[in-house]
């Protein structure tokens, strides 16, 4: 009989965030250990309870008080624009969305690298693309591995203002290799849109069909390469709205692949795709 898994490991298992071989070992242990099963049940209760804490209403009058306080602290009389204020803000005068886009990719792909370092063992066990895809999706056609999906089904969606450029991804990835930490003070991500309800989303929900369609399309494009979908970027491509799927390659966590779907329509093949290095040094 092996030792009990530590509690944090049980929490990771409960969240579907544990990689192999720990995932299988933990599941096997839980089947025969009432004490650990109780910890997991309590974790489920806690998460169930957290889901009750929806975004609170503002107290009456708070909005007005807030605006009044902001107004009091705002510099200068109304309507005037001081030259000093103008100078502070040079970046808006030019459409500097490129740098923002590059920095965002630089950060999120670095994060993918970190996650994949943790999950490397798990990735090594997934040899074939279809098997990997189902395992990672938790909501694929097979559905047998539902508990394996990280925190339920939906992949994060990041909003990126400005134009996405395939040429920029490898560039950003090379630049990123200098740091495994999130950018200090300047990292850029945006909340997933579905988070706006403050926590009532069903965390165990399967991946939305539109996301799954994109993952399937990308997998088809990748041929025999097993992809681990990481997140989406909603952005512009050639001036039009597009959704970019960023994935890593199972067994090779240092590789990031991306697939650009025009208008977020994944019923058609991606208009562009490519790859780069995702592993932080």
């Amino acid at each position, binding site marked *: 009989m092996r030792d009990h898994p530590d509690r944090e490991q049980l929490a990771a298992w409960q969240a579907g965030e544990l990689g192999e071989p720990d995932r299988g070992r933990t599941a096997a242990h839980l089947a025969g250990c009432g004490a650990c099963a109780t910890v997991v049940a309590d974790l489920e209760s806690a998460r*169930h309870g957290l889901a009750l804490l929806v975004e609170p*209403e503002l107290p009456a009058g708070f909005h007005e008080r*807030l605006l009044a306080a902001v107004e009091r*602290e705002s510099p200068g009389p*109304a309507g005037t624009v001081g030259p000093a204020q103008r100078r502070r803000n040079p970046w808006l005068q030019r459409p500097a969305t490129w740098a923002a886009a590059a920095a965002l990719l630089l950060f999120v792909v670095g994060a993918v690298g970190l996650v994949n370092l943790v999950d490397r063992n798990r990735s090594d066990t997934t040899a074939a693309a279809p098997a990997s895809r189902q395992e990672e999706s938790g909501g694929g056609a097979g559905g047998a591995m539902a508990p394996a999906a990280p925190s339920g089904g939906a992949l994060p969606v990041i909003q990126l203002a400005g134009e996405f450029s395939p040429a920029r991804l490898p560039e950003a990835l090379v630049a990123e290799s200098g740091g495994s930490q999130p950018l200090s003070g300047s990292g850029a991500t945006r909340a997933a849109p579905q988070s706006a309800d403050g926590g009532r989303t069903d965390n165990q929900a399967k991946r939305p069909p539109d996301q799954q369609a994109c993952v399937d399309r990308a997998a088809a494009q990748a041929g025999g390469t097993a992809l681990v979908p990481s997140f989406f970027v909603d952005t512009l491509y050639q001036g039009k709205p597009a959704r970019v799927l960023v994935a890593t390659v199972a067994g090779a966590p240092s590789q990031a692949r991306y697939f650009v779907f025009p208008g977020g329509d994944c019923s058609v093949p991606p208009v562009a795709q490519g790859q780069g290095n995702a592993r932080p040094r």
Partner: protein
Amino acid sequence: MSEPTDEELLASHLRGDRRAFGQLVSRHERRVYGICLRMLGNREDAQDAAQEAFLSALRRASTFRQAAAFSTWLYRIAVNAATDQARRRARTRTVPLEPDDAGVPVPAHDPTDHGEVVATAVTVQAALAGIPDEFRAAVVLCDLLRLPYAEAAVVLEVPVGTVKSRVFRGRLALADELRTEPAEPVKAAPLDARSVHGPGTATLARASEPVETDERHHPSKE
């Protein structure tokens, strides 16, 4: 044209548009207040911290870098403001939450059920106040605001792996809090309907509302 982005509004503000920052306040005040409320556990402190967060963002607007999403930057300021507020208040007493603070929507159909949900949400908020600050911030950002781990990592200025670890440990601590919550009688909620629910709800229902639920109607306040 579509609505200006947060970043464009901030730029307008820096150019001297006096309405721009107010628009940013309107867009984000609920989430900032929500962060502060969940971090601090009572409305007075949460309002102070949320206001301080916006004033701090206003003062530091020119230091905002375009590489960050405004919201990410603002959430970091909010978390810091809530942390400062928690330090500032010398008292350890916690002002009990009112039912509305639990953010529970009022259902039109079943008042019985509503009573139970209020008790449970308030209990969870009370339990949340009992876990270590570091874990609570991660749980608030990831489990309540549903930020991706990567964004929470930027907000908290720690690696993604650290965020995950804090979320997991926070959930464990919360589970412990809920399990050990003293079983006081719940005055505001009917008890009899509880046994029909699944084990998760039953576990939560064992815990009670925090004290003084019968004094919600603050006669002297508001």
